[in-house]
């Protein structure tokens, strides 16, 4: 019997199946919403039984790479997430609220998310979203906006841990979208397991007035190999990654992406302690005459630009989440805090700062969504990504700064998270890699 092609509801169902077996579901109180969604999905014409035995199927012979198709557009202006996206939002918001936010300070001091956070994040199956069904994953369609929505939720909890958790997902996304059959078989299937490998996208170079479109890391062709020299900075999870996608400038092909494993001779990883994102396992990765085969080339020149823009949009999404966290926090604070006999919020000088935060957060979100949604529709999205990134870098930092300002001295001390958000939000304008939607 031919199994039905999995549609969007099927995708939701397979995701739910993973949730249903996870202890995290109960821990986060997700049982009810999950069941409700299951009920909705089961009202559709096909049964869930068909789907039960197709998860985790290993693919032995992949001759052509698996590519996820873009979802068809309804043609109308609409801001309603699909049921599946709403479910992911709900799940990741709770994860952010109950796990990421409370562990943010701890992760900062350890410079990485804890074991428990990793376990719970893996139980959510984020990496599964990138891997096509045929390779054992849960994805039936390409949806960068779903990645953006997840990043927004996690960024609300803690940008530092979020960027570490999302780094392997980005590499999986890149392999799914641009990997050859060989690359997909070798690497992508590893992301369907219970604990996906640590993987990272290394872009930022050591230079002033940086330009991610012209990498300083150089790859010289030598026979059927490439020799890579240079250094990548501020790489989320870079301290620990076993697999890297590196942006390099090649002497023959222009800027390109290359896959490099941690065991390659001449590759060294160090911590890259920074102003913020301290829970993100930031790494400084050196390439000293690192040799890779021709098969390490990932995608083409268009891929390269797409990857940079999709990285920027993930930082925009994280910034939207974190800026929303600032808004939520200052709203409570200025209503509670009294000065001159009344709440701070009763003064226009204070209240209007809150208004402006609210306006710019919403604008950041809409601009990010538009760029991601254009990508999902197969439209050119580079202009929209540049505008979103410029806008978010500027306004997220303003919001971070005003967040501290509104709390005054209390904003400056570590008792409140706003000083961390101030440090994290500066990264939006600096990070142009690390993650891929």
């Amino acid at each position, binding site marked *: 019997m031919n199994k039905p092609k999995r549609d969007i509801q099927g995708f939701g169902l397979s995701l739910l199946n993973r949730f249903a077996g996870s202890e995290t579901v109960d821990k986060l109180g997700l049982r009810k919403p999950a069941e409700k969604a299951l009920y909705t999905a089961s009202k559709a014409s096909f049964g869930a039984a068909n789907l039960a035995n197709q998860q985790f199927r290993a693919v032995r012979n992949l001759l052509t790479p698996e590519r996820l198709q873009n979802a068809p557009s309804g043609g109308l202006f609409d801001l309603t997430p699909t049921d599946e996206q709403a479910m992911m939002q709900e799940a990741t918001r709770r994860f952010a609220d109950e796990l990421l936010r409370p562990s943010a300070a701890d992760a900062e001091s350890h410079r990485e998310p804890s074991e428990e956070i990793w376990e719970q994040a893996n139980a959510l199956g984020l990496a599964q979203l990138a891997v096509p069904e045929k390779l054992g994953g849960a994805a039936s369609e390409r949806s960068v906006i779903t990645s953006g929505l997840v990043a927004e939720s996690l960024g609300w909890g803690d940008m530092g841990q979020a960027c570490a958790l999302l780094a392997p997902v980005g590499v999986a996304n890149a392999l799914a979208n641009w990997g050859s059959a060989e690359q997909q078989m070798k690497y992508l299937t590893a992301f369907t397991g219970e604990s996906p490998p640590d993987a990272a996208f290394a872009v930022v170079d050591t230079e002033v007035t940086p330009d991610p479109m012209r990498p300083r890391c150089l790859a010289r062709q030598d026979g059927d190999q490439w020799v890579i020299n240079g250094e990548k900075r501020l790489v989320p999870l870079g301290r620990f990654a076993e697999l890297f996608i590196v942006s390099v400038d090649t002497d023959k092909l222009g800027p390109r992406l290359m896959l490099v494993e941690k065991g390659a001779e001449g590759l060294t990883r160090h911590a890259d302690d920074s102003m913020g994102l301290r829970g993100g396992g930031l790494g400084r990765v050196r390439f000293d005459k690192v040799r890779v085969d021709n098969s390490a080339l990932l995608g083409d020149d268009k891929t390269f630009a797409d990857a940079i823009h999709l990285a920027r949009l993930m930082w925009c999404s994280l910034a939207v989440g974190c800026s929303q966290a600032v808004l939520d926090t200052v709203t409570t604070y200025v209503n509670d805090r009294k000065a001159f006999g009344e709440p701070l*919020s009763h003064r226009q000088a204070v209240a209007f700062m809150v208004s402006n935060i609210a*306006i710019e957060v919403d604008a950041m979100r*809409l601009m990010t969504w538009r760029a991601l949604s254009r990508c999902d529709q197969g439209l050119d999205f580079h202009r929209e990504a*540049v505008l979103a990134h410029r806008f978010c870098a500027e306004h997220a930092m303003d919001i971070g700064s005003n967040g501290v300002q509104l709390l005054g001295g209390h904003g400056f001390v570590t008792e409140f998270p706003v000083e961390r958000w101030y440090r994290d939000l500066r990264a939006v304008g600096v990070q142009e890699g690390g993650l891929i939607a």
Partner: protein
Amino acid sequence: MIQLEQPRKFKALINQAQQVANEVFRPISRKYDKAEHAYPKELDMLAALLDGLNASGRGAGAAGLAQSSGDADAEIRNGANMNTVLGLIELCWGDVGLALSLPRQGLGNAAIAAVASAEQKKRFAGCWAGMAITEPGCGSDSAAIRTTAIRDGDDYIINGEKIFITAGDRCDHVVVWASLDPSAGRAAIKSFVVPKGSEGMELVRLEHKLGIRASDTATIRFSNCRVPAENLLGSPEVDTRKGFGGVMQTFDNTRPVVAGMAIGLGRAALERTRELLNRAGMSTDYGTNRWTQPAALAELTRLEAEWEAARLLTLRAAWMADNGKPNSLEASMAKAKAGRMVTEVTLTCAEMCGALGYAEDELLEKWARDAKILDIFEGTQQIQLLIVARRVLGLNSSQLK
């Protein structure tokens, strides 16, 4: 499904508006900026065309603006609010003052659409209604309105002076805000449709303005002006609990439209400036290094991002109105962002282009003058921020003044 492109089904309407903006408005834009108070007779033919469109059900305009009823299970709609915003964006790319002078597209028409009964809508169909709110002694503080409407038999008798009435000379009806009882505060403020030529209604003067000179701005005095009671919009009851709701509801629909006007004008300035920079040998490419590219290009990209932000906030507010979602907060966000965006964009473009921007060679200086009103009428920047703050912080008007 999240999708923020312009809906394909409005392509024909957008194209028509672009044709009007480019072929009708732009060629006479400077002429009526110079000839303030002259009636742009070119618009009559256009109005006939628009009426034809509206009759065919394909058009959009102030008369179509209304909140759809809320229905959570309904299909997502892109309706009259989106339609009108998109159309006006294009028209205002052509000329804001002329767009404001389009017959039968007045703010009063939007008020009638928002709060009139079915019978009234029928009776006032096809009229051109201006809106009379502001008085010499009250602007943003609409609750301080001193114009009175006193019941007398089957009529109300209106007394007072109204200023800043857009299209107040050219329109054939005026929607007048007046108080049934000045001691009862905002709850007693009602709106009345007053036909032009009513006895006791006098056009006092036309204003000379900074910008949008193609649009007439009138002062009208009411001295014992009789209006039939059936011309009162909404309920005649003074309900202190419901208060201002009825009349203010209009703004939830019209603020995104005014924000849309700013989007159109902003785009005109950005496009022209980009052309002038290109002509001067600066090729604009979104992929170039943001730190080492010419400062003018970096600034233009920054402004374009601000413009795009305002545009999306505006489309969101219209989309909400079309889908029965309460949008007071989002309408004010859009208006606040669009108002300050268009002022900044047009003023910076005028500066960036030097003499070409400041002298009358180009329309850039005119656009910079036209822009300022968009951050003032339909609620100033400060009023929008106040509305947003009260909603976000959960405060009322006595807590956050």
